[in-house]
C-alpha cells in the first residue's frame, strides 16, 4: 500500500531564502497520527504549504497515496483535507452555510453535504448554533467550525496546522478526541503544533525539523527512550537548543 504522504528529493527556497529545503525526504504511512515539530522558522508551515499544494516545489516530488501533488489536479486535492491555522471560512455566514459552500467545493453533492453537516455539527457541539453567524462565536467555537470544514468530505488524509491554538481546555479536549476518532476510522493525520503536551497525547510518530532538515524522525516512544527524556518538550529543547529563534 502506498504511504499516505511521500516527499522525494524536495528542494525549495524563497527568493530571499534560497535552499530552505534541499534534497529533503519524508514519508508518512497510512493510518498514522504524525506530528511535525520544530522551532519558529524551521520550515513547518512551508512544508505544510508544499504538501497541500499551496506552494510548488522547485525540484522533487510530493505524492499523496501515490498520486503526485499538482496545483490543479482535482483528484489529488480530493484526497486530503486541510485545517489551516487561520480561521479560513466566511464569518458572515452560519456554520451550515459555510459547510454548504465548502462541501460543494470539496466535490460533494447536495444531499451528502446536508447529511454530513448534521453529523459534524452534532459531534462538534455546534448543532444549537447551526444557523447563527460565525462572527458572533467564541474562539473555540470558530476553531470547531474550521475543523468541520476541513473534514466535511471525509478525506483519507488530514493536514492540521495548529488546530487548537487559542482555545480553552474543554475545546482542546473535544478537538483532540475527535481527531483520535477520525484516525480510528482510517484518516491519516499530519499535524503541527507548539502545544507539545497535546502532541504527546495525539501523535504516535513524530519528526523534528530545523532549518529545513529533519533532526529526528521516529516513533514517539522510541525517541523518548533513546534520548532518555520524559516528554516531548525535553526532547525538543535537547535537539534544537534553548536559544531564541528570531526568524
Amino acid at each position: 500500500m502506498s504511504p499516505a504522504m511521500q516527499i522525494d528529493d524536495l528542494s525549495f527556497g524563497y527568493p530571499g531564502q534560497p535552499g530552505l529545503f534541499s534534497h529533503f525526504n519524508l514519508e508518512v504511512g497510512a493510518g498514522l497520527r504524525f506530528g511535525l515539530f520544530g522551532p519558529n522558522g524551521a520550515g513547518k508551515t512551508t512544508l505544510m504549504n508544499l504538501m497541500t499544494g499551496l506552494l510548488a516545489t522547485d525540484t522533487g516530488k510530493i505524492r499523496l497515496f501515490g498520486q503526485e501533488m499538482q496545483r490543479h489536479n482535482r483528484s489529488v486535492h480530493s484526497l486530503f483535507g486541510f485545517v489551516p491555522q487561520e480561521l479560513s471560512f466566511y464569518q458572515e455566514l452560519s456554520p451550515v452555510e459555510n459547510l454548504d459552500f465548502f462541501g460543494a467545493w470539496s466535490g460533494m453533492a447536495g444531499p451528502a453535504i446536508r447529511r454530513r453537516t448534521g453529523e459534524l455539527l452534532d459531534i462538534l457541539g455546534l448543532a444549537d448554533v447551526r444557523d447563527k453567524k460565525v462572527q458572533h462565536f467564541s474562539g473555540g467555537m470558530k476553531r470547531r467550525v474550521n475543523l468541520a470544514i476541513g473534514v466535511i468530505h471525509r478525506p483519507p488524509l488530514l493536514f492540521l496546522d495548529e488546530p487548537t491554538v487559542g482555545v480553552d481546555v474543554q475545546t482542546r479536549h473535544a478537538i483532540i478526541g475527535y481527531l483520535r476518532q477520525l484516525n480510528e476510522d482510517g484518516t491519516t493525520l499530519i499535524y503541527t503544533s507548539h502545544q507539545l503536551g497535546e502532541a504527546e497525547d495525539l501523535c504516535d510518530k513524530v519528526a523534528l525539523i530545523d532549518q529545513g532538515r529533519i533532526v529526528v524522525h521516529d516513533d514517539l516512544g522510541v525517541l523518548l527512550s533513546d534520548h532518555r527524556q520524559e516528554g516531548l518538550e525535553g526532547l525538543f529543547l535537547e535537539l534544537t537548543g534553548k536559544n531564541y529563534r528570531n526568524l
Partner: protein
Amino acid sequence: MFKLRATILKDVRVLRRDKLGMIFMFVMPMLLVLIVTSMQSSTFELVSKNKVPLLICNKDTGAASRQFIRTIDTLGLFAVQEIPAGQGEAVIRDRLHNKEAMLAVLLPANFSAQVAARTKRLAGKALNSFGLGDSLNGDGGKTGAAGRDGGPAPGGDVPLTLFYHPVLQESFRRSAEGAIYSALQLVESKQLLKTLYFSINEKELPDTLENELLTNRTAISEVAVSRDGSRGAPNVTQHNVPAWTIFAMFFVVVSLGSGIVREKLNGSSIRLKTLPTNYFVAILSKQITYLGVTMLQALLIFAIGVWVFPVVGLPRLNLPGDWAGLVFVSLLCGCCAVSYAICVGIFAETEEQANGFGALSIVILAAIGGLMVPDFIMTGAFRTAMKFSPLHWCLDAYYGLFLEGGKLKDVWSNVLSLILIIAGLQGIALWGLRRKNLI
C-alpha cells in the same frame, strides 16, 4: 454547475449581510440621482423660467432711456428694478455686493441725446450713400472717423455702463450683455428708422409700419435632433438618470473589490486553493452575482425616474423604444463595471486600498468620462483623456438610446468599444490571478 450554484448562493448570502456595501450600491445612487437631478432642474428653472433681477439707474430724462427700459422689460429675461436717478454708482455697487441683484445698468444723463446724435449721424451717412444728399448734417455726413463707422462721436461718453457681480459666470454675463445690446439696438434702430423716414418722406413714420418693420422677426424653430424623430427636447432627467445609473454600477467596486480582498486576507482563499475546484469558479460567481446587482440598480434607478420623479416635480424619464437595446447596453455597462471591480479586488493588497482606490478612481473616471461635466465643454486634453474612461463609453451608449432616440444599431460603435474594454479588463484580471498564483 452545482459548485457554481453553491458559490453564487454563498456570494448572495455574504452580499445580503454587507449592510454598508448595500447602502453604497443601492441607497446612495438612488439619493444621488434624486438630489443631483433636483438641483440641476432648479438651476435650469432659475435660468430659463425665473427672471434675473436687474437694477437700472436712469439719470436721463429723455424718451430713448424710457424706451430702452421698456424694451428691457419686454425681453422677459430680466426683472427690472429701477433705482432713483439721484442715487449713483456707489448705491449700485452696494446693492450688488448685498446680492440684491447680479447685474445693474447705469444710463447716463445724456443717454437719449447720445442715441439721438448717433442715429442722426448714421441716418446722414445712409442718406448720403443713397445719393439723397444729407439733409441732416451740413458736412454731408462727414463727422469724423468715429462717426463714419457708426461708433460714438469723438469726445462722447459711453452710452451706458453694465455692472456685474464677480461671481456671475462668464457665459451668463455674456448672455445678459447680448440681451442688453439687443434692447439698445432696438431703441437705436427705431430712432434711425424714424429719422430716415422723416428725411425721405417729410412726415412721421406710421406706427403700423414701425411695428411691422421692427417687431416682425423671422421665427426660429427649435428641433432636438433625435434618430426616431419622436422625442421632445432632452431634459435633466434624460441626462442624469443614465449618468448616475452608470456611476452606481461602477460603485460596486466598493463592495466587490473589498470582498475579494477580504476573502484573500481572511484565509478563505487559502482553503479554496487546497480544494478540488478551480478558483476561477469563485471569480465567475462574483461576476454573475454582481452583474445581477448592477441590473437591479439600473432597474431601480430607471423606476425612480419613471415613477418617483414626476411625484417630486421632476420631468418623467422616457425610456428608449428599443427595449432589447436598453437591456443589452445595460448588461454591457454592468459587465464593464464588474470587470473593473474584479481587477481592483485582485490587485489590491488591503481592503483600505480596494475601497480608497476603487471609490476615488470611479469619481475621477466619472469626471473625465463626462458624467459630471458635459463632454462638449471639455478642452482638447480632457476630450482625449475622456476616451480612456470606461464610463464615457457606457454613457455614450446610453445617451444614444435615451437622448437621441436611437436603437442598438445606432450605438454599435459604443457597444464594440465596451466589448473591447470588457475583454481588456478581463484579460488583466486573468493575468493578475495567474501572477498571484490564484488560478
